[in-house]
């Protein structure tokens, strides 16, 4: 089992994702340069947070044309696990691998703080180790996390249970009050219809150790590990 963390020019959470997987979870992980079309036999790909290409045009708009994205698209279409965090989520939306688009936060400011998200679905490779309704305390750090989509796509996403994380208050009682950025339906993370590609705005790699305020984010990486172990067993 091997994780790959993509490095775009301007990625700045690549080291953090690498550390969470390699040093905290102690699983094999390596960096993949954005100009490489070779995914180095990785079993799961992480698109980390940051400001790819400075995000000067539109978040993720240029990164999605990087050579590595062609390979990632193929990898995703053949069932490979792809997780986008923050800017990685934005890139996956721009690439059309996930639905939706990001607008500026409703308050028009960068926000960095711990938020609470509820695990809405557990039958995905990103949430299988969590329990349904579990509340995770994970930090956000973004200017453009106001996820939006047209009404009919939104309806089909809800129907197909593709909304996997929703902002909420610490006790899970009031989703609207817990929404930091104005995202539609308080959506913090979604997956594709095939459930092998997911993105979320909060940073699970920053919530991997209690010393940093929360270890709730680990469950997402653990889920991926379990999914990979399960897949390996099935093919063995």
């Amino acid at each position, binding site marked *: 089992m091997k994780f790959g963390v993509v490095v775009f*020019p*301007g990625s*700045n*959470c690549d*080291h*953090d994702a690498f*550390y*969470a997987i*390699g*040093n905290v979870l102690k699983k094999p992980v390596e960096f993949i340069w954005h100009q490489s079309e070779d995914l180095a036999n990785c079993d799961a790909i992480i698109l980390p*947070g*940051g*400001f790819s*290409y*400075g*995000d*000067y045009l539109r978040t993720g708009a240029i990164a999605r044309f990087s050579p590595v994205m062609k390979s990632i698209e193929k990898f995703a279409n053949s069932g490979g696990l792809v997780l986008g965090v923050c800017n990685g989520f934005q890139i996956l939306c721009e690439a059309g691998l996930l639905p939706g688009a990001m607008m500026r936060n409703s308050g028009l*400011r*960068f*926000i*960095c*703080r711990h938020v609470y998200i509820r695990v809405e679905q557990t039958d995905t490779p990103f949430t299988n180790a969590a329990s349904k309704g579990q509340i995770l305390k994970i*930090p956000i*750090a973004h*200017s453009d996390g106001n996820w939006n989509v047209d009404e009919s796509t939104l309806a089909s996403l809800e129907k197909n249970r593709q909304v996997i994380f929703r902002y909420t208050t610490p006790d899970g009682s009031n989703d609207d009050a817990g929404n930091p950025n104005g995202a539609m339906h308080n959506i913090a993370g979604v997956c594709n219809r095939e459930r092998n590609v997911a993105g979320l705005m909060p*940073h699970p*790699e*920053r919530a*991997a*150790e209690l*010393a*940093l*305020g929360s270890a709730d984010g680990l469950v997402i990486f653990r889920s991926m590990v379990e999914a990979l172990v399960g897949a390996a067993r099935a093919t063995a």
Partner: protein
Amino acid sequence: MATAPTEIRVTPEIAAEHGLTAEEFARVKQILGREPNITELGIFSVMWSEHCSYKSSKVHLKRLPTRGQLVVQGPGENAGVVDIGDGLVAAFKIESHNHPSYVEPFQGATTGVGGILRDIFTMGARPVAILDSLRFGEITPDKNTTPEQAAKNRRILDGVIRGVGGYGNCFGVPTIGGEVAFEPCYSQNPLVNALALGIARKEDLFFAKAKGVGNPVIYVGAKTGRDGIHGASLLASAEFSEESQQKRPNVQVGDPFMEKLLLEACLEAMETGAVVAIQDMGAAGLTCSTMEMASRGGTGIEVDLAKVPQRETGMTPYEIMLSESQERMLLVAEKGREQEVLRVFKKWGLDAVVVGRVTEGGLARIKNTATIAAEIPAHPLAEEGPVYNRPIAAPAPRVETPEDWFQFAPEGTNLTQNFLKLLTSPAIASKRWITEQYDTSVRTNTLAVPGASDAAVVRIKDPRTNEVKRALALSTDGNGRWCQLNPRVGAMHAVAEAARNVAASGARPMAATNCLNFGSPEKPEVMWQFSEAIDGIAEACTALGTPITGGNVSFYNETLGKSIYPTPVIGVLGILDDPSRVLKVAFCNPGDRIVLLSVVRDGSSKESDDDLRRSFSSGEYTKMLSKRLVGMPPPCDLAAEKRLIDCLVALAAEGVVESAHDISDGGLAVTLAESCFGAEGLGVNIALEDMLPAEHALFCENGARAIVSLAPESLAAVLAIARQYGVAACEIGKVTSGDAFRIEHKGRAVIESSVESLRDAWGNSLERILATK
């Protein structure tokens, strides 16, 4: 070869327009042995500007203690460096970007952050934290500030905050500390001081010394444009007038994405082993980097400007040499290995061009294809510039009578309303609205986010192995009010408070950096303030064992002839051997005992009523009520501070306290309230037996004090440690469950409130003020 013909002949008038005095101009001619051409004049004028040459401060800066066992690099390089054990070093420095931030708040602040980050990674250290120390004019109208001025100050603050955040957030380094203060004197001259901290392996450090005759000189990073020409000499080295807005083109423009690429490319290039020396192009751009590298290395340098990547066409040598375009570096590579270096920069999509070479003999030769644009001996230019021992004169003593000083309320007065008001004042209120606009958690090292502990605390990962062993704590402090009233004592307090904050996070203070913000050095009273402040810093840093490893002097902080308060800002770095032992301000458990740690000054019992009122008058509480600047800072007892610092470090190491918070702005009551705000569902019940008036007990800002909370069974251990360090430990109350915040003084309740209403006042005040357009 003949000197290039230039359109402009240099006259004494033109030299004067460049800010050179007649004597300085004569010196230029003496060094060159001839008349300078216009490019050479430009080079001399920026190198000898106050900002770059420290000509007015040098003689005083010599008095600062700069040596220590752990100091690897003191002042004179891009940043100070200290040994933090396990083969690792920390590089850190603070720098100002005041004038640009007034002219163009967003860009001024971004380039301030960008500049200090480059200073850190130029040394081979990866930046891991930023702190910023900010001063603005008042953001709410009062008798000294009109509604229009307040609105303008809010706009400046907003631009600066967005700028600081915008740069650090994109670059990917957490902005995790600093302070914000407000005084009318900063209305037209805000202070933006940015501190950066980086980590390297000791053997991987780089210095800005050109070496090896024949080695190629490589230009890397952003292209050179016409932005920022004379930023250092005109913006940073002259006072402001009404025309200052016309200087907007002198402000540089920042590109954090470019800087992020530059960081990664530089660190990767350094790993090849082919880099000999490296220097960033900050103030005075290509001029400073070429001249200083050659001067430090004792070599010459030859550069062809035609090869410099340019953003605009038709730039003259003068413009190229003086441009302050951001995100550029100059490096010297090993001859024959330049391709290894160039390859790395190409990978990161950056311009990298061999523009010249290191030469013998000490001459800096600036060519423009076949002509010579400038030819200057590097060492005399960089090191033999003017040095001034400017006249010093103490200002006339302020005439104050006891009637000017604070009158304490009659015994038994309920102070709850005043306390609520104090909590909403911008200086005291929560800075959450600001700090949430900064990425505080990127790099996954942040052990204490802003406000969680008295200092910003990051754990240190070994750059090679990612292994975590220790943590570092940082705090910046400075009190302009106190320095205006007494620059020497005020400066001592700045050092003491920064060190105390570091100790209150559990870390042992080890070194310091300083940013000295003052008015015009041409005014004898300002030079007096400067000299006094230096003496205060020197005395405090010596007493507390925190040598100054670097920093920056910012003079000419005046507008329309009026100086800011002298504002030395001190950053203290401390080390924590066990990262799990970080002390935070929040109370933890109901039933925990609250102990006031203090060191009673010798002779303080003899203080008269007038002395008491006089020092009390200089604090935030009096400022809130009277809006005046009167009194004296409380005396600073460095021996007492040292004992308290050692005591706090020992308490943290022994793991016997649950929380710690030093007493500073707003006094004991604010300290207690902040410790409640950090917790959920906890209050306090406090009984003070202080014989002094209640307002003094609650709000005085005397130094060398802190509160700690602890489990009842740890009380004996805490008292024993306090005794060992000669610190008085007095149990003043308990942490309670529930929402009651209650303080009794001599048996009568003086503050009684719900924590929730205090929290609302404190927590949302700044947002409410700043939401007002």
